[in-house]
């Protein structure tokens, strides 16, 4: 199990690094898919089976395809290499800010005794039934709110993306 943690972590960090640093946009999305699958594997390792499935369905299945469509609608279809952006002033300032944040967070995490806690539960059972019951009992109002939010986002996205076509008619 420990080895699995290190392997999945390495793959996840590699995917994230490539996703934000490659020059070809389509390659970036492929690396982002690797990152999403790594996160899903972490969820499975943490025994959150339902969340791992949701992660693959929503992120690998929907968000990655959405990003690919956005690239194809805004860029040359094959996603040719962009200009080299690395090692400019902007790159250095962003990288320094991110590295400073990582170091600060690491210090804060390691200074807390919570960092040494080991897993609490050891039962290996599916949490799907529990989540389903909670969703329709205690959490039914947030569920409806999310439904309204998703409908509004769907309509809003279509309206924003179609704006120019309607004007030209």
């Amino acid at each position: 199990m420990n080895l699995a943690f290190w392997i999945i972590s390495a793959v996840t960090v590699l995917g994230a690094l490539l996703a934000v640093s490659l020059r070809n946009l389509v390659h970036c999305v492929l690396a982002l898919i690797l990152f999403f699958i790594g996160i899903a594997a972490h969820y499975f390792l943490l025994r959150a089976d339902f969340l791992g499935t949701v992660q693959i369905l929503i992120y690998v299945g929907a968000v990655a395809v959405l990003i690919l469509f956005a690239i194809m609608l805004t860029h040359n279809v094959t996603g040719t290499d962009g200009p080299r952006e690395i090692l400019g002033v902007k790159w250095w300032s962003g990288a320094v800010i991110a590295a400073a944040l990582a170091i600060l967070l690491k210090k804060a995490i390691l200074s807390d005794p919570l960092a040494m806690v080991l897993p609490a539960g050891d039962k290996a059972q599916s949490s799907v039934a529990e989540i389903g019951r909670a969703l329709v009992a205690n959490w039914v109002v947030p569920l409806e709110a999310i439904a309204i939010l998703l409908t509004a986002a769907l309509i809003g996205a279509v309206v924003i993306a179609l704006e120019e076509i309607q004007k030209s008619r």
Partner: protein
Amino acid sequence: MNIPLGHYLILAAILFAIGLAGALTRKNAIIVLMGIEVMFNSAILNLVAFWQYKYFAVPTAQLFAIFAIAVAAAESAVGLALVIAVYRHYKSVDVDEMKELKG
């Protein structure tokens, strides 16, 4: 599994920093959105790690993660629609060229 909770928290912090670096340094608006997705996912990984290590008895953290994923999906749909609208207007997705509102 005997990985301490701190390992997961530090992993999430590293992933968050990578996403932040991508959102700050890249010029392409789509890659900025991808960096934001990376940050979202690392934050949700924290929630799931805390659930597994401290509050295993109740599924509240998982429900919270599910709602966060739903909101993130709505955000990325609207964000990408905005990128397409901006592209129609400027013929570019370079965030440095969107300066019409700059004083």
